[in-house]
């Protein structure tokens, strides 16, 4: 008899998710669905607000990476004003963004994912958390806390507040960086760098123990999308949006952000509040593409900082020019954290970082604009339309996790097919299904602009839709 498994709550992710696994008559997995279960409605309630309020409003979408929303939003607002922001302001924004990626990647790797990696997917769920890591691997847990603190403290030093600062404004930033603060951040950089180096070394040593996960965690060819520099270098704050096919060939490049609409459309899913963006030329659902650290390292051929450049070369040597396993998101995250720390050093050592001209002023000069940047979890798109007076008429926000929606669904299906046997949910399978979702570091509260407790819910259903088993973490 065909059946249905439900995992009611996915834990250690940002937001709510539920997974349903449908079994066929022979007990094999017929299909899976990842449900994102909340909606918040930001795109609607901003209508009528002055456009320059958008950064502070959209930053409230997320408490983990508000900087990403702030930056995507101010970039869209820069384009509404049709200004080129002062060079110092662009450097300061990139510096802030690097600090944000360091803290977010530290949170994802150390706090959310390391319990699976260090304590084992089949270990006691009650102890499989950051406290368990602190007991078994105290140095690594302390490193994680210290690295996240470094990122958060840098945000505070630059922007005045750790969460939802008001420093980044349309046209630039609202205050220059003084030399004392620059020196303070520089003095903390070596420790942060040594933590990332140490963690990378540890992870590379441990990765051979995860061959099964590498082979079965969302390991399938998809398209990839990420910002790159003009020569294919890793870029996080700005660049051109490049789409790459599974073989590593560039299939499209968006230079004018407004043109993203020619390549990305969003499908609406009946079972989830999270829309499913797809690459238009390939159609739906074949046009599934992935974003985020894995995609960025696939799309970018090189990295312009020395140590991260060497790590990227080694990564590509190990897994080929295009790596498809979602498990490698963790590895890619560490390479990026190293890039960000090095990039921060480069930016801080450039004399123009303390320049005093940091803001361009202008009114409404364009009625439609798009801001694209690489949030920690992938490409983030803010698309605004305003009237002549600057009041918001329409907005579309495509959040990093949204881009990965189709791929996450496929990853869950792959893991379920590999691990589900029979009509109950084995504990190890529950953990692995949760872990594969977690590998994408999904920010579901952002991507549906939802709110709620982070949990996972898995449902096992028969073909008639009858509930057979349900587990939540």
């Amino acid at each position, binding site marked *: 008899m065909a059946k249905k498994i439900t995992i009611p709550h996915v834990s250690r992710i940002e937001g709510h998710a539920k997974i349903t696994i449908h079994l066929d008559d022979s007990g094999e997995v017929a299909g899976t669905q990842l449900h994102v279960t909340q909606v918040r409605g930001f795109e609607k309630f901003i209508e009528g607000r002055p456009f*320059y*309020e958008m950064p502070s409003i959209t930053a409230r979408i997320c408490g983990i990476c508000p900087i990403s929303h702030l930056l995507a939003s101010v970039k869209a607002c820069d384009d509404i004003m049709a200004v080129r922001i002062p060079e110092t302001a662009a450097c300061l924004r990139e510096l802030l963004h690097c600090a944000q990626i360091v803290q977010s990647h530290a949170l994802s790797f150390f706090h959310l994912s390391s319990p699976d990696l260090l304590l084992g997917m089949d270990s006691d769920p009650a102890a499989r958390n950051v406290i368990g890591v602190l007991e078994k691997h105290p140095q690594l847990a302390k490193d994680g806390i210290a690295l996240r603190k470094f990122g958060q403290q840098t945000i505070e030093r630059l922007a005045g507040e750790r969460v939802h600062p008001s420093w980044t*404004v349309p046209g630039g930033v609202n205050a220059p960086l003084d030399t004392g603060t620059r020196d303070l951040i520089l003095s903390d950089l070596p420790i942060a760098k040594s933590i990332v180096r140490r963690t990378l070394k540890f992870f590379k040593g441990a990765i051979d123990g995860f061959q099964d996960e590498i082979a079965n965690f969302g390991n399938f060819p998809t398209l990839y999308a990420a910002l790159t520099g003009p020569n294919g270098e890793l870029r996080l704050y700005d660049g051109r949006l490049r789409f790459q096919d599974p073989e590593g060939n560039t299939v499209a490049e968006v230079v004018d952000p407004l043109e993203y609409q020619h390549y990305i459309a969003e499908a609406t899913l009946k079972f989830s509040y999270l829309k499913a963006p797809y690459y238009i030329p390939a159609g739906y659902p074949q046009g599934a593409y992935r974003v985020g650290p894995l995609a960025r390292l696939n799309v970018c051929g090189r990295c312009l900082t020395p140590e991260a450049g060497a790590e990227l070369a080694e990564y590509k040597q190990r897994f080929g020019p295009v790596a498809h396993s979602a498990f490698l998101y963790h590895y890619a995250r560490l390479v990026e954290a190293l890039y960000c720390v090095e990039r921060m050093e480069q930016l801080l050592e450039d004399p123009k970082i303390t320049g005093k001209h940091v803001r361009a002023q202008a009114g409404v000069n364009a009625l439609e604009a798009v801001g694209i940047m690489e949030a920690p979890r992938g490409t983030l798109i803010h698309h605004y339309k305003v009237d002549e*007076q600057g*009041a918001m008429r329409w907005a579309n926000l495509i959040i990093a996790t949204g881009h990965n929606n189709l791929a996450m669904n496929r990853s869950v299906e792959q893991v379920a097919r590999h691990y589900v046997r029979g009509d109950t949910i084995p504990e190890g399978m529950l953990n692995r299904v949760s872990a594969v979702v977690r590998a994408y570091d999904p920010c579901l509260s952002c991507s549906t602009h939802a709110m709620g407790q982070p949990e996972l819910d898995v449902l096992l259903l028969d073909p008639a839709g009858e509930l057979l088993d349900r587990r939540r973490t």
Partner: protein
Amino acid sequence: MAHQISIRIDGKLVKVSAGSSILDAALAAGKDIPALCHMKGLSAVGACRLCVVELAGVGRLLPACTTPAADGMSVTTVSQKLTKYRRMILEMLFAERNHVCSVCVSNNHCELQALAARLGVTNVRFAYSYPKLSADTSHPRFVLDHNRCILCTRCVRVCAELEGAHVWDVMSRGTGSRLVCDMNQPWGASKGCTSCGKCVQACPTGALAEKGWCVEEMAKQPARVSRLAVIRGGGQ
């Protein structure tokens, strides 16, 4: 010289000119009575009711700004009862419209917010009414956001009494009351507005703001407008 009268404020004997309000007398005595609609130099309207005081022998609270001081009065400006009512007034102001401080241009520079902090308003007991209100962005330099308006009418008075343009007014009644420009026209369409910006500077919240400033950036200078109003003799 105007005739002098004597009143007691919180037990202290104060001599003020006849015709002064209780609020003037209290200010002269160094008392800081909370108020949002009052602005020195403009006429008093008693709109916000935050300056309510207790008057010996009178069973109800009276607004200090519109109650004339009378010889021999004994006034209490600080008491548990007054604090309770003042907090309640602030809570009702917050519940009436959509005051979202975290995304407001006047965050950290707002008189309403500062007063709430001063009086210890830590939560709002009343159900928020969440009215659907618009922002008028039609003026090239300024913006009116009804969500943040507390109907103190400082803008109405400063425009009429100091600038002499009388662009602003209040229409409708009760919770339907709205600040209107001319005869309910978009601000940008007003023929009377001189774009002097005095209304913006006088506004205690982020309801009237200069365009282009982001969250926390709109620090206003009501004292300058008030000083100008006093010099010009526009009000009391």
